[in-house]
């Protein structure tokens, strides 16, 4: 091998710590790029492919029982892609833990072979036989079952039916990710066995084209509805869905977008680390460069040698980070995918993606070469004289900087402190880069903890709409007074409210499609709802057909404001309602309206009656709520009420918090990556500073400095850097927290976050910096202190 390449190898091999430092710096950036771009390519693609392939329903119409003839005539309507009948029934199922929960069972003639909302088989069989149950994957987890379990169903009249779970499927079209009700699939004959009529009551329709065009879907829907009405059946309600992209795609994109921005920051930070280390490498090699020039090396040859060294660093980093990035990217997608109901292809089916690898190779080469070219050009351009005689110019310039002059004037510092301070600020470029890296890394780290609080704050706001401890639903209306009486008999129940709930249709001016609104009507003086208003006010006692709508209505009618009059059909009668306020809800696309019980119950002719009740209990813990739910359920059933469900209010909050924690978890991964970058930066800077001063340390000892002084000097220096970096990180964490919280809450909840502050981030980061500083300075300091004077003086 040519000796110049031998030198390259020797440089890499002899200073393993430095090689590790550079390779680690490059690796982190390239790893982040690989991880995030893999997720970017895998996840939205899998989401939309799975979603579209499932042929999601575009129009759902609930009507009177019908048969194949109506399906046939609907499917012949121009614009209809496919039409199928469904029977949807709800029964109570005993969960694995013994408690009761409602399950929605969907049946069709050829369950498992149908063409709309095609199920994706996960395990077991795709097509259930009679009296067998196919379960939706998510419901399995909520209920605590696994394949092969026999489930117990309780029918309306108390009859018990047992069914085996023969298959687990994923319904990729199930869009409502925040309020997941367990779902199962059965045959029409099973419906009869469960004491329901084995006929269809739901018409499911897909359109033949433009599945993303709401107006086209609405126009086809109108045709479908009139066909059904012409057959003599009333249309109870209609829901329309676009189906070109996964309903959660925008949120997934937003989360990935945020991760990408963080990833870019990490690349940026890793770039500054690389710059730092390469700078120091060149500084250490000044003499060697001089020698090589002395014996005939031209500037380009020197440049080439060091460029090759960088390429070698890059190659090592790429060898590590390409496979690691691919694995992490897949795992990242996996974590996200289970939260948003997406099936990822197997790990094996996701090989290294050429685009990702190309991007990684580009970043892995461009960043180190880009930042390395400056020190290399500086180093390669040095004259033999400067290099061999110790570079008189550079040394002179530095010793006369403003900082040193200032330091000389400050008399307050004594002894080692002055030396340490001066040392700290000697390599100013490097110090600036290190502080920058640490400040940004620490800022992001701290911010993640603040974002977490902000997200939980959002969850709190939303759970203000679900403040009840127990939600009790019946299959029919009961007199509220009667329910109240029975409820009060149960110890632990504080008070109870009867809520009216119904579906309405808003007629939006200038639009053909009506917008469905889910109307809640708590008593006007309800104590179980804490709304967050964006505009106007909440509904009040005495309001006449007043309604408060959530922010989703603004995407239907962006000009909507309090005081507007709108037409809403409730119970088949279209009337004029007044919007009194717009409130902030979950960011879901559904429109929810709140009016008073007094208004709605008279609109639907059920005054003093309700089927839905909200109960406050004396203890608000989830365990107490769950326990009491079971008691309430049993109590009402015993007394002959048709209980649909009694559910602990805290469960909803838990689901939401879990989802938020997934995002937090992802952010934390990024925060950790930035922390690693920062740590490497700190450790690198300190040890480089010491390496470069080994000779000086030797002189200090030769003139009688004790080891303890040397060690103390280095420690003070490390602590100064650590302290400054922490202060900077704390400062930049404020803007980073604000931006990050807002971007995320806007993506998920369609509303900005309130600024929140958590001491955790600050504490953890300060601890981390303290530990790192100590370790990163102690190790090289001890090494330096252990060198013999002879070794030190011959140190190059």
């Amino acid at each position, binding site marked *: 091998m*040519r*000796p110049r390449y031998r*030198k390259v190898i020797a440089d890499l091999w*002899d200073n393993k710590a430095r090689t590790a430092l550079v390779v680690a710096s490059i690796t982190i950036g390239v790893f982040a790029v690989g991880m995030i771009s893999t997720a970017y390519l895998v996840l939205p693609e899998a989401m939309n492919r799975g979603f579209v392939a499932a042929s999601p329903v575009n129009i759902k119409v609930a009507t009177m029982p019908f048969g194949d003839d109506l399906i046939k005539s609907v499917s012949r309507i121009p614009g209809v892609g496919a039409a199928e009948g469904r029977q949807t029934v709800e029964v109570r199922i005993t969960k694995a833990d013994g408690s009761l929960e409602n399950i929605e069972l969907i049946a069709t003639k050829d369950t498992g072979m149908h063409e709309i909302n095609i199920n994706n088989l996960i395990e077991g069989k795709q097509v259930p036989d009679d009296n067998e149950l196919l379960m939706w994957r998510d419901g399995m987890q909520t209920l605590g079952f696994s394949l092969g379990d026999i489930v117990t169903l309780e029918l309306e009249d108390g009859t018990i039916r047992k069914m085996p779970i023969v298959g687990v499927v994923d319904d990729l079209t199930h869009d409502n990710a925040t309020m997941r009700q367990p779902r199962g699939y059965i045959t029409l004959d099973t419906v009869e066995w469960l004491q329901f009529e084995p006929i269809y009551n739901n018409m499911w329709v897909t359109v033949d084209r433009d599945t993303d065009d709401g107006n086209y879907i609405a126009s086809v829907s109108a045709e479908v509805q009139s066909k059904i009405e012409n057959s003599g059946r009333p249309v109870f309600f209609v829901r329309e869905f676009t189906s070109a992209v996964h309903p959660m795609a925008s949120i997934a994109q937003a989360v990935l977008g945020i991760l990408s921005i963080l990833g870019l920051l990490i690349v940026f930070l890793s770039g500054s680390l690389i710059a730092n280390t390469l700078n120091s490498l060149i500084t250490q090699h000044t003499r060697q460069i001089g020698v*090589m020039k002395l*014996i*005939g090396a031209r500037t380009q040859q020197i440049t080439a040698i060091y460029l090759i060294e960088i390429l070698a660093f890059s190659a090592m980093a790429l060898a590590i980070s390409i496979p690691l990035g691919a694995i992490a990217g897949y795992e990242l997608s996996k974590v996200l995918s289970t939260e948003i109901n997406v099936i990822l292809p197997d790990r094996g089916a996701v090989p290294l993606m050429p685009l990702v690898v190309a991007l990684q190779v580009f970043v892995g080469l461009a960043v180190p070469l880009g930042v390395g070219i400056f020190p290399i050009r500086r180093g390669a351009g040095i004259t*033999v004289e400067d290099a061999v005689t110790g570079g008189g110019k550079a040394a002179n310039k530095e010793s006369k900087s403003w900082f040193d002059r200032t330091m000389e004037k400050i008399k307050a510092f004594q002894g080692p402190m002055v030396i340490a301070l001066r040392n700290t600020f000697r390599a100013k470029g490097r110090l600036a880069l290190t502080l920058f890296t640490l400040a940004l890394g620490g800022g992001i780290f701290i911010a993640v903890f603040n974002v977490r609080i902000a997200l939980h704050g959002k969850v709190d706001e939303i759970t203000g709409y679900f403040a009840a401890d127990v939600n009790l639903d019946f299959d029919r209306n009961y007199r509220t007074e009667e329910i109240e009486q029975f409820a009060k008999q149960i110890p632990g129940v504080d008070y109870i409210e009867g809520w009216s709930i119904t579906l309405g249709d808003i007629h939006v001016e200038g639009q053909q499609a009506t917008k469905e609104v889910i109307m809640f009507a708590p008593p006007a003086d309800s104590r179980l709802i804490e709304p967050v208003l964006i505009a106007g006010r909440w509904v009040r006692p005495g309001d006449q057909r007043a309604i408060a709508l959530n922010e989703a209505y603004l995407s239907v009618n962006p000009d909507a404001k309090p005081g507007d009059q709108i037409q809403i059909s409730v119970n088949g009668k279209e009337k004029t309602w007044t919007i009194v306020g717009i409130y902030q809800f979950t960011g879901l696309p559904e429109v929810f309206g709140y009016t008073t019980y007094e208004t709605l119950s008279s609109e639907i002719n059920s005054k003093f009656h309700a089927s839905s009740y909200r109960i406050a209990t004396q203890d608000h813990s989830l365990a107490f709520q769950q326990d009491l739910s079971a008691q309430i359920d049993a109590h009402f059933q015993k007394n002959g009420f048709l209980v649909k469900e009694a559910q602990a209010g805290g469960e909803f909050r838990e689901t939401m918090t879990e989802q938020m924690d997934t995002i937090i978890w992802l952010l934390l991964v990024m925060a950790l990556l930035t922390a690693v970058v920062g740590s490497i930066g700190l450790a690198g800077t300190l040890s480089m500073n010491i390496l470069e001063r080994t000779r000086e340390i030797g002189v200090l000892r030769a003139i009688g400095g004790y080891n303890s002084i040397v060690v103390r000097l280095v420690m003070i220096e490390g602590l100064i850097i650590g302290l400054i970096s922490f202060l900077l990180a704390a400062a930049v964490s404020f803007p980073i927290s604000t931006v990050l919280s807002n971007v995320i809450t806007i993506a998920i909840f369609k509303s900005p976050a309130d600024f929140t502050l958590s001491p955790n981030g600050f504490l953890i980061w300060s601890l981390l910096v303290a530990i790192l500083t100590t370790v990163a300075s102690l190790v090289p300091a001890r090494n330096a202190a252990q060198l013999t004077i002879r070794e030190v003086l*011959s140190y190059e």
Partner: protein
Amino acid sequence: MFKFRSNAAALQSSSAVTADRNTPFIRLRDVRKVRQTAVGDLVTLKDINLDFYRGTFVGIVGKSGAGKSTLINVLSGVTDVTSGEVWLGETAVHKLSESNRALWRGTNLGVVYQSFQLLPNLTLLENVMLPMDFCGRFKPKESREKAMHLLDQVEIADHAHKIPSRISGGQQQRAAIARALANDPPVLVADEPTGNLDSVTAETIFELFHKLIDDGRTIIMVTHDRHLAERTQHRLRISDGAITENSHPIGHNPHA
């Protein structure tokens, strides 16, 4: 007799063996070197005029700070002159660019310093091969053989595969000399090559130099050792940047 060569050809080494001993090979004309220091300009070389011939052993002496190293460095192109001309054969050293000067130095000049200046993480063999690698005059296999031969010549072939920190100072100095000879340069400049060595080792290095002179090389050596200086053919004394003694001023060929 003059051999006229183009400027490009000047970058190639002339063979030491075909030395023309009758014309001055190295010429310094009105060389002035002024350095900027904190206390003002310092004239470290004052209008130096010198001729050196092929196959001569030049010894430079003088007090510390007199300008000996500066003179050597001006000769080797390591230091720029402030004014004046430095010629080596037909090459105007003072006019070469930084990079061309490196290439020129690599092929025409061997440089040896007091501290050994070997690359610390390469073996002696690789250190000796390095100039050949940079100047590209030999094929890798050839340069390996040649480097071994040179190490053999300076009697450290046994240590060829050791790194510099594993051998003694004298051995390192020999390796540095072997390296300086790698590209077969007609001229060797040495700044106190024996300064760090004991007198016995210094003597062996000195004998090595004499062998090189016999091969037709020119050696220009700075030394503090008066006894060694007295054994050179062409002796110079420099004080305060000026030549104060010169055994062979311009026009006096030591071969004559």
